[in-house]
């Protein structure tokens, strides 16, 4: 900066540096040539600070509204949109199965092998205890029909596999029925002491379970399922493991361990019991997990079921979006749906088309009324205004139902036409439960949203312009076309945006008068929210609808220009 001031001769006349130079002369400049405020801090800094304080104050003023909008508008919508890709339920409910399935290849055309079924047994047993398996079943049933009952049925019978071993262990020695025997076998002495001292009435939390040393390596499978069991009854039921017989899953684990591990050197509690069982298990009646699952339902041998599980195992899925555009995620990859199952493309197109038709009929009907409103003397204009607003004060359902009474085949309009002899009694017009009915009813309902912005723009157009045009020789038509109409376009723009965006998300009216050919995409969204409970698909459809509206808005801005839209003078 000193360079600039040192060489002023290059610039003629006053320069931005002049005040600096003057300030320097006033001693308000520091050694680096920065200007100082009255309190000695650099001016730039102090300016920035005061600006920041002002901004902060403004932010504080709007903070309540901002928070309100964020919490009640942005957050729920973001949450809903997130559901369209979220898919944690599979890996949450069946974590080991999902992992084991990674080694399996759908292309093999065969169901996976024993280890995957073992993992499934483990996961499904726990899920059935937590009653989460049916929920997963209905989730996957959206993708492959039949999984819902497969999971429900398997969840009901998953106890049976372990029960077979449980019975055999208990037949061998009744001690295996004793909760205490299990607790002493698996739990550490310190925990046993604490657990015994625990008093249910006291309301104290249950003591943390501690494994007996060495048992995890001696009986790994048993340990894992026993830990699941203890964790479950501690947290879900608040029960002491001393009072609860272990799940049948634990007995299956014990069987597996005794077959695989050597317990001859074990010398802890109940060593004899364990060694006795070790000698006997070789003669137990057995069934592999795979055989067991196939006996519950042979669908478990169907690679499609496993393929679906594999395809939907990631935490995030494109499946819902694919469904929303008439495709589906299958084990073979994404593909188009069967032709007789495609519906969303048709509905999106129909929603667009009908919303446009409704918008244009609103313009056609609304423009003359708005013109009248703006140009009539105050008194008559007010009366007309009341007529425009009157529908607003009537329930939407009543207005829609009124159209039913008007338009149906035994309705007012048909009756009048038949009475006048314009149509025969046998050929009454079909005007409801189709597209026509929806367009008529919705045009009527949305008309005020078109008229009001048009009116407020038209009422600001000075009448002298048209008069001036006429005095310069324009005909009525030319004056209107060249002078009045261009000035009313911002009103049409605003009304069109309002009506189109309202129409595209409309739901009640098409549901009541739309029949089968006059329904919108929002009717399907409502169906998936409230009936099929497929919220993921509903969210995907909603996201696409939102995106389409935003794109249209962008295109509108490029073509018409959003600055040309006015809601009032």
């Amino acid at each position: 900066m000193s360079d600039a001031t040192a060489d002023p001769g290059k610039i003629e006349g006053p320069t931005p540096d002049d005040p600096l130079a003057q300030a320097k002369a006033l001693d308000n400049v520091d050694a680096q040539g920065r200007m100082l405020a009255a309190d000695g801090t650099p001016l730039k800094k102090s300016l920035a600070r005061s600006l920041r304080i002002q901004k902060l104050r403004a932010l504080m003023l709007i903070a309540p509204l901002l928070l309100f909008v964020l919490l009640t508008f942005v957050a729920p919508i973001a949450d809903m949109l997130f559901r369209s890709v979220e898919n944690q339920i599979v890996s949450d409910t069946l974590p080991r199965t999902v992992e084991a399935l990674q080694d399996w290849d759908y292309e093999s055309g065969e169901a996976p092998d024993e280890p995957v079924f073992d993992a499934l047994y483990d996961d499904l047993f726990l899920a059935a205890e937590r009653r989460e398996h049916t929920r997963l079943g209905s989730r996957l049933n959206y993708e492959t029909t039949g999984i819902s009952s497969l999971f429900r049925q398997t969840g009901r019978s998953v106890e049976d596999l372990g029960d077979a071993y449980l019975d055999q262990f208990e037949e061998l020695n009744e001690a295996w029925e004793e909760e205490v025997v299990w607790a002493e076998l698996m739990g550490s002495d310190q925990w046993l002491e604490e657990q015994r001292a625990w008093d249910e009435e006291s309301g104290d939390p249950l003591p943390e379970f501690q494994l007996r040393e060495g048992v995890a390596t001696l009986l790994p499978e048993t340990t894992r399922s026993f830990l699941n069991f203890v964790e479950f009854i501690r947290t879900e039921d608040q029960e002491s493991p001393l009072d609860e017989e272990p799940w049948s899953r634990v007995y299956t684990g014990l069987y597996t361990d005794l077959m695989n591990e050597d317990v001859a050197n074990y010398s802890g509690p109940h060593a004899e019991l364990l060694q006795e069982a070790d000698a006997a298990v070789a003669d137990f009646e057995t069934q592999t997990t795979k055989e067991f699952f196939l006996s519950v339902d042979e669908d478990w041998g169907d690679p499609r079921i496993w393929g679906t599980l594999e395809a939907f195992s990631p935490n995030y899925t494109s499946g819902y979006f694919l469904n929303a555009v008439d495709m589906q995620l299958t084990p073979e990859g994404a593909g188009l749906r069967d032709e007789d199952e495609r519906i969303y493309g048709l509905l999106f197109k129909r929603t667009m088309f009908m919303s446009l038709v409704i918008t244009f009929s609103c313009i056609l009907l609304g423009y003359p009324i708005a013109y009248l409103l703006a140009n009539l003397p105050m008194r008559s204009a007010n009366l007309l205004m009341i007529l425009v607003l009157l529908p607003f004060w009537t329930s939407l359902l009543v207005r829609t139902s009124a159209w039913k009474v008007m338009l149906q085949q035994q309705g007012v309009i048909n009756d009048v036409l038949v009475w006048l002899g314009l149509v025969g009694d046998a050929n009454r017009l079909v005007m409801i439960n189709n597209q026509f009915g929806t367009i008529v009813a919705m045009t009527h309902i949305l008309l005020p949203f078109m008229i009001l912005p048009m009116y407020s723009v038209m009422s600001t157009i000075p009448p002298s312009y048209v008069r001036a045009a006429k005095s310069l020789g324009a005909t009525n038509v030319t004056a209107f076309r060249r002078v009045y109409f261009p000035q009313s376009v911002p009103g049409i723009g605003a009304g069109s945006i309002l009506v189109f965006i309202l129409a595209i998300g409309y739901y009640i009216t098409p549901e009541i008068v739309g029949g089968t050919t006059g329904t919108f995409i929002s009717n399907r969204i409502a169906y998936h929210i409230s009936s099929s409970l497929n919220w993921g698909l509903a969210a995907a459809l909603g996201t696409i609808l939102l995106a389409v509206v935003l794109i249209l808005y962008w295109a509108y801005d490029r073509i018409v220009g959003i600055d040309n839209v006015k809601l009032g003078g």
Partner: protein
Amino acid sequence: MKMTKTLLATTALTLAGGAVAAQEMADSMTLVSWGGAYQNSQQQAYVVPYLEMNPDVSVTWDESSNEAVAQLRAMNEAGNITWDLVDVVASDAIRLCDEGLAMEVDHDEILAPGETESGEEVDPTDDFGDLIVSDCYIPQIVYSTTFGYRTDMVPDGAEPPNDICDVWDLETYPGQRALERRPINNMEWALLCDGVAKDEVYDVLATEEGQDQALAKLDEIKDEVIWWSAGADTPQLLADGEVFMGSTYNGRLYSVIEEQDQPVGMMWDAQVFDLDGWIIPEGLPEDRLNRVLDFVRFATDTQRLADQANYISYGPARDTSAPLVPEEMKQHMPTDPANSENTFLYNYEFWADYRDDIDAKFQSWLAQ
């Protein structure tokens, strides 16, 4: 001696426990139902007598049963269950139970035993029998979806329709039909009239060809059908003379015929039985749960279920209630022998599986 002491102590504890439980009952309940005549029958038969016994309790009705599944899921996610007892149809109950939104109940434990005319006690599970279609479900009534027709629009010389296939017979019975805008029931009726035996309907419907067959049969009348979505639509369409015949719930037809005196007749052939009953939402606090259990025990006993039939033409779900139904009401019941010569049993499990798949097909067929 020690034994006696323990026994005494246990008894005392149990008594104390009972007393505590009795005190810990909330004094208000929110019941959810369908509104209209049906809710009124519940109010008269269950709630009014219950409130006479418990004057301190206040009961609020919420008429949201048709969106109960979605609402309960939203409440569950928000962790704030505002409903205490919800009236839903069986298929919704199965779904709520699957989703973990409804509480599983032990019917023999929480419900009052049934009482036969001779004064014998019957276990609730035997009394309700097959109607307990889900572990979460406490059935109240049996209703049916069946057809009503305009008696004055039956062509001269023709018999009034008395066969489900008359719905397809446009030559003998011209005029529009009203059918529900969903595949359930319609697909079954179509197959029945396309020559499929009654006990094979669901096997056929499980196949792709079977679904196409049903839709092809529906195609024959598609142009003459008005598709309804609310239970009140068909009665209205019949009353206006818009349709010649239409499917709806039998109780709705009863009120069109008996209360509004419209020229409408019932066609009971191939009526499809369905159930309506209570579920208790999962996750109620203890005091509210105690109150609900107390109410449910009372409201689903033999006498109360029979009382409900005084107000609406739906059959009680308990076997033991059937003899107590008033004589003049019996002829309007879907379960009356004269009406139930040919009935169709709705397969819940099938629809729980195939609903999404067939619905996609059905809606796409409708939209074409």
